[in-house]
């Protein structure tokens, strides 16, 4: 009897895990960086390549670090949301221009609008590795103490901004 009931048992176990899988989003990859200080970097700025920025510049006000590139199609979808977020003035928006050509990046900003307070350039993608970036676009919320509070993979939507970002911003002190 047990021999013939075994397939049912196996199926039951599989069903249990399938059911568990339903309530989870496989695209959601938790970043080990959340709750940790932002990784160190020392990178040139896009608009003024002779000036450099470092993680110290993140401290003081809450900042949304947005990884983008002019060759990235999904970044175009997200761009409207970033512009609106910049206009809302609830958080400083900082761009991390990833593996891009400077001319293309500047051309993109002049055509589509520029939501970024400043933009750092990661031409060879080294800094992005430290940040655990594996696709563009990605966004990180860094609080006023320079601690990463939130990470989103893929294009931001306004619903996400209202449901996730703003509540987190309310909790963390410091205004832009």
């Amino acid at each position, binding site marked *: *009897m047990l021999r*013939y*009931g075994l*397939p049912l048992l196996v199926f039951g176990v599989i069903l249990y*895990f399938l059911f568990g*899988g339903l309530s989870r989003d496989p695209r959601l990859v938790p970043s080990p960086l959340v709750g940790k200080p932002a990784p160190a970097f020392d990178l040139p700025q896009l608009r003024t390549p002779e000036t450099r920025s470092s993680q110290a510049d993140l401290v003081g006000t809450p900042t949304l670090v947005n990884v983008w590139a002019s060759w990235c199609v999904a970044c175009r979808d997200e761009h409207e949301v970033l512009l609106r977020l910049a206009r809302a003035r609830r958080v400083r928006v900082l761009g991390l221009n990833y593996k891009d050509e400077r001319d293309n990046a500047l051309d993109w900003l002049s055509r589509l609008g520029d939501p970024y307070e400043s933009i750092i350039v990661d031409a060879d993608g080294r800094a992005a590795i430290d940040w655990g970036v594996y696709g563009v676009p990605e966004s990180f919320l860094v609080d006023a103490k320079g601690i990463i509070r939130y990470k989103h993979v893929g294009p931001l939507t306004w619903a996400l901004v209202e449901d996730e970002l703003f509540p987190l911003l309310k909790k963390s002190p410091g205004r832009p």
Partner: protein
Amino acid sequence: MIPEIGHLALILALGLALVQCILPLAGAQRGIVGWMATARPAAYGQFLFLCVAFVCLAASFLASDFSVLYVANNSNTALPWPYRIAAVWGAHEGSLLLWSLILTVWMVAVGRFSAGMTLAFRSRVLAVMGGINVAFLLFMILTSNPFVRHFPAPAEGRDLNPLLQDPGLVVHPPMLYMGYVGFSVAFSFALAALIGGHLDAAWARWSRPWTVVAWLFLTLGITLGSWWAYYELGWGGFWFWDPVENASFMPWLVGTALIHSLAVTDKRDAFKAWTCLLAICAFSLSLLGTFLVRSGVLTSVHAFATDPKRGVFILVILAITVGGSLLLYAIRAPRIHDTGQFEPASREGALLLNNIVLMVAAASVLLGTLYPLVLDALDLGKISVGPPYFNTVVLPLLGGLGLVLGIGPIMHWKRQEMRDLARRIGWAPLLALVFAGVVVGWRGGEHFLQAVAGLFVATWVVLTAIQGVRERLVHQHGFAGMARALSRGFVGMTLAHLGLAAGITGVTLTSLYGVERDVPLKRGESAEAGSYQFRLDGLRDVLGPNYQAIEAKVTVSRDDETVAVLKPQKRVYRVQTEAMTEAAIDPGLFRDLFVAMGEPIRDDGFSLRIQYKPGVRLIWLGGLMMVLGGMLAASDRRYRVALRRARDVLPEGVAAV
């Protein structure tokens, strides 16, 4: 108006499906002929109503009725009309409609070609199939209705996913579904036999042709999908071990095992409980495939539409269908007794080994596919299982399968003298080894052992197949005798086995000797892959009906002789603004030359992916040989004779009862 007719047709089909699921089953239990007789008309009626629904949806697409949400999401006035029809099954709702329609096609086929079965058995089979359709029609009507309207209607539709705007899409999903859903017939036969308590050789004989037909459609669907991925996705690969590919591969593996174990059950009255379990598993894995594609529990390039509510619904369907049938199996199987006796060294033994290898392969694929899900559910972290796992585990198993496959067909039933077998095989192993060694040695390069192993297995299968044919013919005199000795069943089997040999050869050559390079080229520059020179001669803009494209002109030459001029495109579809790569391929039986466009580079150039792929066509040729083999086997004389005899014995009026 038209969408409402379609919606109504769905509801009417659901009503009929309910009747078909309940009345014939109850009638068969109580022996009431009138109740059992409702099964066939109900099945035909469902087929009719689902045809109406399908035509209504197609008509809405052709008329670009964007007030229908599904049409607005998946079509556009600029979409060429053949793709508008293909768009009917281009997304979730419509593909369910296709699923259900195909299920009724199988029901009609069972109703039509069931002469020779008892009325009670046929009623139970159709009742089970009706029950499956109840579940899918409910799912469609409650959560995924393709006829939902929305107002105000948009002026323009969002267009079909550009990946799917390809002739491959027109045929790939229907073939695949014919296979998936076709296993519901074997499943229903097994369930009907379990419910009725008559698990005998007749049940296996009735199941065999149906299983082979479903299997050949699945094989065709997978082959087409692989070919489509190769030329459309722009990576130049033929198999990616994507969860959804795995979802089609698992039923294929189990279905292949089922075909072989059915042969044993039919001929030798052995393996009955096991065969029954395989029939349940094959269809369960088809359902699981549907769940994986439609629920979004796993990340996949195929996960177009994901919605947790739908996931729960399919999971409930899965739980009831699979759980219910396995429960029935657990209760009824202990009473099944096999009468066929056999020794380990026998054809039965070889087929058992075949079954074990195939099931272990299927289980390994299932494990790899669900492993990320399991770890995540246990909070043990997020991982993904990639091609290295599957290649390491499954490829050696398939190689082992090839070894068993060589001797299986030439072994005797019941008992095989090993010395006799060794005598008949003769020099074949050595010959195969020498051949593989010489070919690989002549080609040179790395991966010596893998290449020899792959070619050895392929040659071994070919040599033993020749031996099998020779043994059939050796005592025959004259053409007529030879033709009689080579039944379609035997030729079909041999052809399918040779197909596996072709496939193994193709996979071995492509993966070990293929050259794949990503090179940035400016106009006039060239690069080399596999002793072929690829020169970028020009770039120009091209305007399609619903896309814009840049087309490159790449001249391929070998020893300063032009071999091909390839024109790959990089397309941007206007509505979905998605960039698509149209690879250009110069096909050949022994090698493909492949160019796909990457990103533009400065100073008038493009990064190109150039590939030299030896033997890649053999993979799909092998698939087609298996399909052809299946067709021959399913049309074997004994099935045709059985049908004719049954019709002669029972006048049409009686058979229709």
